[in-house]
């Protein structure tokens, strides 16, 4: 595909012969011309004759066909009515398409059911899986995203007939798809919440934006968690689905991807003690053993609207902590005493004060008792064996 200089030259000459008035910058000015089946066949035959030399130029040769698509679809006011009588624009901006990740493909590479031009009836919806699941000889190889999406809540909703649920194009767009590394791409990390998920999940978007994880708190920092960091990208499941990454027994794993990583937490002046102490606590142990009605990170800290402790609206603000602990399923009747003392207590950490010292004292008491007992038992055993031998003799 890279070596297209020579064929493109030939191709341009050929194009000029075909339509002398056309200039490449104004495709919309092409006069509408009827192209019969015979001409198409002739064109393809010519291409065959050129053979191996033109093989590398297949994507380019297809451009010629695109010209013909753009005869109609290149017009800004090209519209059609759907079954419900609603008007849709059928305009395709060539500049945007050429700049997209698929810019080197031709229309029929995706719109596979185009049998003749102009196509009379409405074309089928493009199936991205034709390339992105099965793979192609160029560009994208076979990928798992298609399978992940197939089992996701979005795909299942669509199967049920809820057409509000997104398919590929709902999030990724159609002719304007950019690589996720492109800062203008919808899939660029910082654009995902607003340009993808938040278009439907508006409340979650607003909560996330106001939270400590939001862009205001991070100011362009790429380390902030966006929707997909916790919910994954294509295989998003319902919270109640045990296969979901945010299911009660899995969600801690999502939080500790960052909060359990000291090198990340260090940058924000934090450490990973909360994670360690959580796993020391009964809540942590029970969650680890698969209990789902036990407090995990989000039970106390919230999901999208996670706020700092000193924020009065935060669920872990000392003023509001009793209400958080006192949720009907947890500790109903919790009083203000629930907020008196460190919440994340690690008996192995010196900062826990008296708890650390009592634990340390007990540890050494146990060790001392064990040593004294073993010495005593060893001596006693020797003596009694001796005694037994004497009696036997």
């Amino acid at each position: 595909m890279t070596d297209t200089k020579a064929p493109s030259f030939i191709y341009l000459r050929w194009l000029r012969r075909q339509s002398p008035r056309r200039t490449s910058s104004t495709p919309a000015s092409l006069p509408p011309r009827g192209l019969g089946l015979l001409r198409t066949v002739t064109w393809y035959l010519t291409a065959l004759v050129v053979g191996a030399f033109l093989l590398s130029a297949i994507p380019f040769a297809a451009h010629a066909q695109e010209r013909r698509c753009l005869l109609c679809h290149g017009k800004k006011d090209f519209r059609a009515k759907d079954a419900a009588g609603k008007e849709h624009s059928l305009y395709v901006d060539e500049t945007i398409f050429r700049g997209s990740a698929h810019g080197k493909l031709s229309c029929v590479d995706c719109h596979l059911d185009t049998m003749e031009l102009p196509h009379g009836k409405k074309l089928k919806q493009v199936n991205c899986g034709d390339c992105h699941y099965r793979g192609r000889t160029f560009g994208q190889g076979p990928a798992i995203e298609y399978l992940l999406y197939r089992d996701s809540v979005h795909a299942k909703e669509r199967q049920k007939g809820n057409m509000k649920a997104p398919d590929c194009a709902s999030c990724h767009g159609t002719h304007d798809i950019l690589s996720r590394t492109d800062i203008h791409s919808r899939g660029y990390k910082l654009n995902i919440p607003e340009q993808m998920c938040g278009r439907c999940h508006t409340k979650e978007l607003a909560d996330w934006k106001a939270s400590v994880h939001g862009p205001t708190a991070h100011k362009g920092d790429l380390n902030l968690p966006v929707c997909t960091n916790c919910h994954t990208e294509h295989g998003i499941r319902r919270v109640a689905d045990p296969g979901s990454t945010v299911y009660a027994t899995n969600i801690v794993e999502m939080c500790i991807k960052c909060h359990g990583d000291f090198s990340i937490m260090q940058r924000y002046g934090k450490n990973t003690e909360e994670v360690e102490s959580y796993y020391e606590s009964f809540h942590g142990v029970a969650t680890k053993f698969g209990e789902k009605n036990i407090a995990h990170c989000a039970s106390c800290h919230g999901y999208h609207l996670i706020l700092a402790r000193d924020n009065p609206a935060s669920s872990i603000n000392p003023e509001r902590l009793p209400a958080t602990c006192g949720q009907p399923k947890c500790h109903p009747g919790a009083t203000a005493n629930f907020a008196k003392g460190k919440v994340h207590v690690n008996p192995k950490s010196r900062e826990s004060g008296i708890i650390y010292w009592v634990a340390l004292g007990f540890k050494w008491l146990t060790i001392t008792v064990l040593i004294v007992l073993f010495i005593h038992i060893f001596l006693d055993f020797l003596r009694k064996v001796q005694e037994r031998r004497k009696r036997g003799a």
Partner: protein
Amino acid sequence: MANKDEYIQRFTVSERITHILLFSSLIILSITGLTLKYHESALAQWIIKMEGGVLFRGKIHRLAALILMGTFAYHILSIIFSRRAHGFFQDMIFRKGDLSCFAAIFKYNLGFQKELPAFDRFTCIEKFQYWAVGIAVVLLSASGLVLWGETLFMMVFPKWTIDLNHIIHSFEATVGFVVLVVWHLYNVHLNPRVFPMSKVWLTGKVSKEELKRDHPLEYERRFGND
């Protein structure tokens, strides 16, 4: 010389049942408790699975605790109301010579002393173990009840006392477990005098010969010096 086949009653049926209830509830409590404390080990994880999950494990633990507390209450009541149990308890109280007794046992085992001190009904080791278990049961029941009704407890006390209580419960239990398993099981199982097991806990009887060897003062009191 005392007859080898002559037996005397050392523990009554009620005392033996108390002992069975005590050790069976303690075994269940130890298994369900220690697996939670050492939840990181693969063995503990397997046992918790056998116990029906980490929450059901807690239910078993509480049931066993109720049995233990009931046993304890029964023992206290019998001390108060039964003449025999009252005497049993009085014989368990530490006397003057009991402190030096521990040193004497060490010296005897090291070979610095020819004879063991003459024991009465209960040796100083038996007394120590009795009191260790008694105090541990009181401490663990109290701290366990606090953990059981933590919301109720925290109506009065701040959260950090619960955390402290948690530490005391788990570590005190570990010390108690170590003392019982290592020391008591040695005395009644691995001890060459009784190996593989002393049957007193089942029959309640000891031979006169054993009584004379292990508790000479009591023997003398009951049968005179023959």
